[in-house]
């Protein structure tokens, strides 16, 4: 079931038939013929997703050590474990499209490929852990639901597994936030302070408002919904929940426009998003460095597993 890579010159009729097939809900398996653009597009999409799951571990891992109760420690360990596991599943899907895991990890470490904005930011307190586990995961799940029916079937199936496995992540995050908002003043202040810092990255999360017509991922039905729809869905679901806890959202412009039936908000700095995802976030270098060092230090172990003599 090795992915076949076609020659550069593709029969336009065959490509058209393929596009019709995916646009009407048809599926593609790893061994099927596919236009080169499709293969590249899916690979890029899945690779970024895999990178994000992997880099998402780093903001949280130091807090496993500091988790203040046995249950929180276990839950956070399990959640982060799931994320590493998801990275593995996604790299597997991408690998079957023709790029080795080694090459993908190397490109990530060399700063050549991207990962989600939120994982470039620092975490300062246990409240960050709670906010991330609740709202960042919620934003991610919104995106993920739109991938359950992806035209690329191995990816769709992996997304189904991922969505099932992540069902406890949000609950666990929400439990942490609610507990702290019901706790001491110090805890409440910590959560509000964390939300103040995480709000703009959350607004950025679903990406800039790309024109649906220009979105190749939509064109090939790799994903089912455009960015701005996902953002609105996220807002509708979670803003009421945030406000009912007594938290303030740090955007004075934020309101629901009933006439237009959409949330209005301050336009976040899309340049900041661009800078961050191209590797200039506050913690980007630190985190990549940690992985680079660990990767280099453990090369000998991979050689043992792969059967490569030193």
């Amino acid at each position, binding site marked *: 079931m090795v992915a076949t890579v076609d020659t550069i010159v593709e029969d336009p009729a065959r490509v058209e038939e393929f596009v019709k097939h995916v646009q009407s809900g048809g599926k593609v398996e790893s061994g099927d013929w596919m236009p080169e653009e499709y293969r590249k597009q899916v690979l890029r999409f899945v690779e970024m997703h895999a990178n994000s799951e992997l880099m998402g571990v780093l903001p949280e891992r130091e807090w496993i050590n500091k988790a*203040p109760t046995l249950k929180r420690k276990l839950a956070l360990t399990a959640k982060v474990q799931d994320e590493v596991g998801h990275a593995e599943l996604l790299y597997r899907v991408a690998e079957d499209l023709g790029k080795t895991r080694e090459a993908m990890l190397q490109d990530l470490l060399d700063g050549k490929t991207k990962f989600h904005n939120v994982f470039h930011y620092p975490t300062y307190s246990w409240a960050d852990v709670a906010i991330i586990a609740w709202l960042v995961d919620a934003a991610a799940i919104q995106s993920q639901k739109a991938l359950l029916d992806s035209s690329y079937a191995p990816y769709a199936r992996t997304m189904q597994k991922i969505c099932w496995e992540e069902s406890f992540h949000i609950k666990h995050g929400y439990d942490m936030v609610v507990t702290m908002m019901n706790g001491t003043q110090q805890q409440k202040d910590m959560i509000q302070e964390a939300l103040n810092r995480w709000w703009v990255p959350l607004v950025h999360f679903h990406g800039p408002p790309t024109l649906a017509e220009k979105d190749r991922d939509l064109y090939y039905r790799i994903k089912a919904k455009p960015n701005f729809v996902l953002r609105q869905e996220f807002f509708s679901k979670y803003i009421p929940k945030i406000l009912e806890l007594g938290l303030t959202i740090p955007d004075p412009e934020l309101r629901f426009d009933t006439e237009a039936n959409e949330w209005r908000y301050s336009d976040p700095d899309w340049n900041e998003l661009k800078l961050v995802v191209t590797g200039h976030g506050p913690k980007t270098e630190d985190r990549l460095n940690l992985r680079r060092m660990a990767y280099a230090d453990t090369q000998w172990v991979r050689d043992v597993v792969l059967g490569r003599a030193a």
Partner: protein
Amino acid sequence: MIDATNTDTRALQTLLTALADDEFILGYRNSEWTGIAPMLEEDVAFSSMSQDEIGHARIMYQMLSELTGVSADRIAYARRPEEYLNCQLVEHRRLDWAHAIARYFLYDTADHVRVEALTRSQYAPLANAMQKIVREEKYHLMHGDIWIKRLAHFSPESRERLIAALESLWPDALGMFEPLPGEEALVASGVLEAPMSELQAEWLEQIAPYFEILDLPFPAKKDERTGRYVPTVEPVYGGRQGKHTAELAELWDEMTSVYRLDPEAVW
């Protein structure tokens, strides 16, 4: 069967604390590989084993809670470093992969002897817990077995790293069987079926053939008179008395940092 009222509760508490702290601190160290293990697959595997360990620690902290009325979380987080009774083997900071595998192997095989013996403890809650725990260990032993063999056989370099790691860890591994304060009472009442020194001899007996097959140095000799294995290196004791290295203090500082913000808060 023994219940909490007619056994030497102090000695029992010491035993439970030592068992719990071993697992808790080892679980902490193993979770330090999260996000940076040599392969994603091992990242996930170490994380599972770490959760098992913390889960086992939790079971024992809960047993202690029933005996003392202090909550399990408080027992886990509110003590000072000198009140932890883990062996020093588990508190050493994360080094390289060979060190991690060697430590795991020594710990898991030794712990297996201990857990197995405790499935027959006359203290029912402990026996019941251990009967469940012994089954979860299968995965750990399987994992350790695969990796020790791979490192021992693959190349002179991997072998050398493994041997160096084992050599550095043997004295601490023997520290797992440091005699527990009050263990005579536990043996007399059947809470512990044999003193730690005997469990150690059993452990060395069990793993000796393994080291022979893998052609790895084994720092113990069979005593001709008793027929039991005796170590040829000095054990590192102290953990069971609350004596630890600076590494535990460092670990404790990080581990309890959020807890200490407000020990009365609910997290």
